[in-house]
């Protein structure tokens, strides 16, 4: 919680400052070290951190400063011209691209990996499979499912039978992607979900709450939560959330993970983006529990 809280405060302050027209391009410190600012998606933050650490050994003269905070944070920093690379687990909206262009910034999208959005349940929850239409009825406005018995299970430790919906704050890329992929573009979330600030909090809360259901990137799954398989249609095959199923596109709620640069990357930023796409970079994302963009063999 603490680093994110800190980032939140820092970002709140950053949001108060106006875009600085001179801020485009990485800055170079007095000692000749280039600093690349990299900010955004909480889903990608662990990978971005790992990339930055490994890259420090490859290219000691380039430092990558990685901050989380959510896709919205990264994208709004890109619009305001305060970062070199924005991490996002959703695509930039047309409105956001337009406001970036108003500030003289032309964001370019790069796919750096894929992520399966896992559904999290308390380990005592006997449910092993769930369909997209059931998820929509649980989370979507007008959806009828409010209790676990409507889903056909009795959850030990959940006497009230109520489905406690755990969601993300409304600027999160995970929130936006789940809405698009599960509820559909025009359906809103049911009000009253517990909106956590970060994927880790979703997992923590579900792990301690028998009645809860939550969603987040597969990489955040741990032994304290169960991840049921997901059916695209009610009578279709149930696909488990795994790196392999995310890569080959069979898992119904997997999404591309993106990095945005201001214009086509150049210089130090280009070298870094190319390195991320290399076998070394793609093995790191695989190691962190996400699917690489292509088949790689890692040692």
């Amino acid at each position, binding site marked *: 919680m603490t680093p994110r809280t800190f980032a939140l405060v820092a970002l709140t302050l950053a949001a108060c400052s106006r875009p600085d027209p001179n801020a485009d391009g990485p800055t170079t410190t007095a000692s000749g070290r280039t600093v690349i600012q990299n900010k955004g998606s909480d889903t990608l933050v662990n990978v971005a951190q790992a990339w930055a650490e490994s890259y420090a050994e490859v290219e000691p003269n380039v430092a990558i400063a990685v901050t989380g905070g959510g896709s919205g*944070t990264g994208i709004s920093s890109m619009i305001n011209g305060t970062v070199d690379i924005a991490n996002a687990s959703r695509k930039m909206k047309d409105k956001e691209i337009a406001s970036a262009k108003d500030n003289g910034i032309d964001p370019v999208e790069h796919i750096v990996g894929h992520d399966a959005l896992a559904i999290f349940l308390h380990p005592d929850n006997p449910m092993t499979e769930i369909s997209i239409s059931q998820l929509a009825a649980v989370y979507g406005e007008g959806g009828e499912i409010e209790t676990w018995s409507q889903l056909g299970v009795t959850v030990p430790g959940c006497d009230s039978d109520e489905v406690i919906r755990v969601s993300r*704050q409304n600027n999160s890329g995970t929130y936006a992607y789940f809405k698009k992929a599960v509820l559909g*573009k025009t359906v809103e979330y049911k009000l009253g*979900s517990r909106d956590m600030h970060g994927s880790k909090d979703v997992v923590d809360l579900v792990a301690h709450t028998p009645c809860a259901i939550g969603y987040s990137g597969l990489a955040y799954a741990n032994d304290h939560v169960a991840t049921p398989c997901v059916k695209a249609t009610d009578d279709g095959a149930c696909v488990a959330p795994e790196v392999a199923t995310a890569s080959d596109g069979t898992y119904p709620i997997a999404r591309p993970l993106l990095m945005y640069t201001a214009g086509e990357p150049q210089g130090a930023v280009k070298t870094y983006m190319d390195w991320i796409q290399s076998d070394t970079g793609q093995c790191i994302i695989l190691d962190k529990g996400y699917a690489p963009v292509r088949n790689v063999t890692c040692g």
Partner: protein
Amino acid sequence: MVPTQTESQPAAAASLEEADRRDLDWWIDKLVEGLVFIGGISAIVFITAIFVFITKEGVGFLGSRFDFSEFFFSQAWRPTSESKPTYGALALIAGTASVTGFAVLMAVPFSLGAAIYIAEFAPPKQREILKVLVELLAAIPSVVWGFIGLSMMNPLIIELFDVPIGLTVLNAGVILGLMAAPIMTTIAEDALKAVPDSYREGAEALGATRWQTIFRVTLPAARNGLVAAVLLGVGRGFGETMAVLMASGHSINVPDSVFDSVRALTATIAAELGETAVGSEHYQALFTLGILLFVVTFFINLTADLVVRGIRKS
């Protein structure tokens, strides 16, 4: 510095010249005066600057998109909806009000009890220790309180009350009550101490017991100070962000029991402001929430201040 009037004219002129020396001490005096003036005026400058800033950022929303009945009577806070963003703050206002209200209910009996004990009963040594401990309670950072709410109170509430989730009005209210209690206790104790001892002596001379003296004489005499203590505690609770964000469940919901999750105004601003593009409608709407908070806290503090002034006069 001023020559005495009994002296003759020439002597007076001479001593006037002597008094008019602009030496180092005089300059230091002027310098300190200036610094103290800047210190005194700075609070006014800052509060005005803050008010101008949040109004400037929020006024675009107030002027164009703001819909009074939606803002105050709709629960639908969906600022990032692509099809139709709505800005209903009813649930957020209800969330802040319920958590603060519950916190005050929790904190008032404890704080007043503590203040009465410290001011009226505790022996001097114990009083000093208690005062230090109460003030230490105020030194715990709010994020630590939030952490206690999230990781300790949540499972405890689920266990004790057999409810589906422990991040509720109850959780946030208890945490906030503990945070507001030191302020209430300290100010209430000051108010009780300010009651002249002659009142107590008079009451005891008339044969009143200790309890009768406190209940019939001391408490009514300190009434204004006690009200101010409660109001400042309310203001503290109203503005608290981090602990409420973590302990309340952050769920858009008008609560009908203390076991419902809610979302506070402050927590909404904290969670969303960092991720909105500067100047967007959502950004301005968050500043409008800021204006609302500012105005309410301003009036709470103003009332507290006027009430305190009331005791000084009487």
